């Protein structure tokens, strides 16, 4: 589950991680109030307006309707009014959103951190994530901040450092110091960085993050170390022990069909193809998508109905898939183990009859316990449903349907 920048920063503050302070605003009026407050606090006329969407590249991205960038530096109340009114409600298209873009419902009006001072300003990169191979958390960091880290890793891999954290002892002092030294820091900035990294790691573990990225990690001209931006992902499996975090989910950022599917306990991912599919088991569901492609179609979705493929789940699955007008055929692929295929077949028939007018070919492949009885049920139902037992037979039927 991904969080917005403003949500992530609020959480980091609880772990004493210094962040670029700001206010989340949904109206121009709120943005103006935020600006006045920031101006009073900092004594600076500069402030930053940042669109809050679940995608990166906001600064270079632009609002479709008026071309304004998703991150703007304001130096007056008039600027704030202009930026807030143009960004709020607009559709922001960035390198990560795709052409459709994302509607901006909130902006973050934040203090400017790039003020003048006695020492040089610097931008670094730091993220914490899981190293799957080692089974340990790893802190990845670089002196090259504010840029796309994948480009840095590709062009100058020597500029990326990694520090693995042993699960039994946690992050050690020497490791935090090593990070600060490798970033070239000294004096107050060094001390601040050691504290920053230590507290950030505690936040990562305490919040059960799946990913925590600070880019840029900023050294201000007064040697403060600050998270100017923050991308935070939470481990959904851990939300059972973080009721407060579960409520931070923003469903407007998600595909509405996927949200709807979730309500029926269906695991659904929307894709762009023309053949819908409904499968039990995640691995078999992915394999079925692959088979659709090899048969000349394109998968319209990933849908895992889980262990209980009954009339209710099949009906919910049908409804969700049929919402997509691009779908030209549906393949149901169930390997019945503990679930009996004849029960699933009856579920398909009931759901089909209940929905009435399904005008596209339905292919049902049932294999496993009572597969033959299941095929007979489907074949004798009088419905326009094609049945198969072998996966290769199902592939042939898909081929015909999309031809």
């Amino acid at each position, binding site marked *: 589950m991904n969080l917005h920048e403003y949500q992530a920063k609020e959480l980091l503050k609880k772990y004493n991680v210094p962040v670029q302070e700001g206010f989340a605003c949904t109206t121009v009026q709120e943005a103006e109030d935020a600006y006045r407050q920031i101006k009073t606090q900092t004594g600076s006329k500069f402030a930053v307006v940042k669109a809050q969407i679940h995608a990166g590249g906001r600064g270079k991205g632009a609002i479709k309707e008026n071309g304004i960038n998703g991150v703007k530096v304001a130096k007056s109340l008039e600027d704030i009014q202009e930026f807030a009114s143009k960004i709020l409600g607009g559709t922001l298209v960035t390198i990560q959103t795709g052409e459709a873009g994302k509607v901006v419902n909130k902006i973050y009006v934040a203090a400017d951190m790039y003020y003048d001072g006695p020492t040089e300003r610097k931008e670094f990169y730091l993220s914490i994530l899981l190293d799957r191979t080692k089974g340990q958390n790893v802190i990845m960091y670089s002196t090259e901040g504010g840029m796309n880290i994948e480009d840095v890793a590709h062009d100058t891999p020597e500029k990326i450092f990694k520090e693995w954290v042993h699960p*039994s002892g946690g992050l050690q002092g020497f490791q935090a110091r090593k990070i600060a030294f490798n970033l070239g820091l000294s004096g107050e900035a060094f001390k601040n960085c050691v504290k920053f990294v230590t507290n950030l790691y505690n936040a990562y573990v305490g919040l059960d993050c799946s990913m925590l990225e600070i880019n840029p990690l900023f050294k201000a001209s007064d040697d403060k170390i600050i998270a100017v931006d923050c991308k935070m992902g939470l481990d959904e499996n851990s939300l059972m022990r973080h009721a407060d975090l579960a409520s931070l989910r923003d469903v407007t950022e998600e595909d509405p069909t996927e949200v709807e599917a979730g309500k029926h306990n269906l695991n659904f991912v929307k894709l762009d193809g023309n053949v819908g599919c409904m499968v039990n088991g995640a691995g078999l569901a*992915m394999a079925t998508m*692959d088979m659709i492609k090899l048969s000349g179609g394109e998968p319209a979705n990933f849908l895992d109905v889980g262990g209980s493929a009954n009339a209710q789940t099949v009906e919910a699955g049908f409804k969700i898939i049929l919402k997509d007008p691009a779908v030209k055929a549906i393949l149901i692929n169930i390997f019945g183990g503990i679930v009996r295929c004849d029960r699933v077949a009856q579920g398909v028939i009931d759901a089909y009859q209940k929905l009435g007018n399904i005008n596209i070919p339905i292919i049902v492949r049932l294999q496993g*316990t009572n597969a033959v009885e299941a095929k007979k049920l489907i074949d004798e139902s009088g419905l326009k449903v094609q049945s198969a037992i072998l996966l290769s037979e199902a592939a042939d039927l898909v081929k015909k349907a999309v031809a």
Partner: protein
Amino acid sequence: MSILVNKNSKVLVQGFTGTEGTFHATQMIEYGTNVVGGVTPGKGGGTHLDKPIFNTVVDCVKATGADVSIIFVPPAFAADAIMEAADAGVALVVCITEGIPVQDMVKVKNYLQGKTTRLIGPNCPGVITSNECKVGIMPGFIFKPGRIGIVSKSGTLTYEAADQVAKAGLGISTAVGIGGDPIIGTPTQDAVELLMNDPETDAIVMIGEIGGGMEAEAANWIKANGNKKPVVGFIAGQTAPPGRRMGHAGAIVGGADDTAAAKMKIMAECGIHVVSSPADIGKKMAEVLKGK
């Protein structure tokens, strides 16, 4: 012989009296698995399915000599259950539970280091040695006895492969569902290694999916060890979009190396017979064995 479990395995069930534990323990007993007892803290001293219940794993092991544990404990307590089994010296722990927080598994993986316990899973269908012992939730009848080993990240796709192998006139020695989570106890390579060294296994089906680097690691190991037995491979998720989690917690394309295409390329380069359609697994295995 086969691997991991056989007719001599003594199996205990953690989360014995819960809905899942009860249902699948019953199925395992029907299959012929020697279930010797179970653990539900607070219910020790009683019996369930005619088997004794214990409060702790160590009590159960002492009284029954159990050497395999299967875990049906809910996700919030599953990591603790794995460590309890390891502490009691259980040789093989199979964790079925789906949805364990990944930081819990970081701890478990560290805890198991230096211990003799092998963990299979979590988020897996379990292990089955055909006609001898089922420690899992798979439908037993699909696994006809034979000399093909299966290693797979996925449940129903394992059943699919076993069924195709049977339809090709072959059978299964042992099938291992290693699980679809980012951190698992027995990675692909370990399971492949066990099957390569098993005198009762002639060939291996290796089924992976997008995310992580376990299949590439296994493929490189197979090549470095001289491709002793033929391996048929399949990777699910060739059509999965990057950055989206496809059901399994670990099934997500993060970079260029963990796509299906990248894995299939490395596997083919290492001498694995890679099929692009999941419908061809059984057929390919028959072809490979015939050509040998």
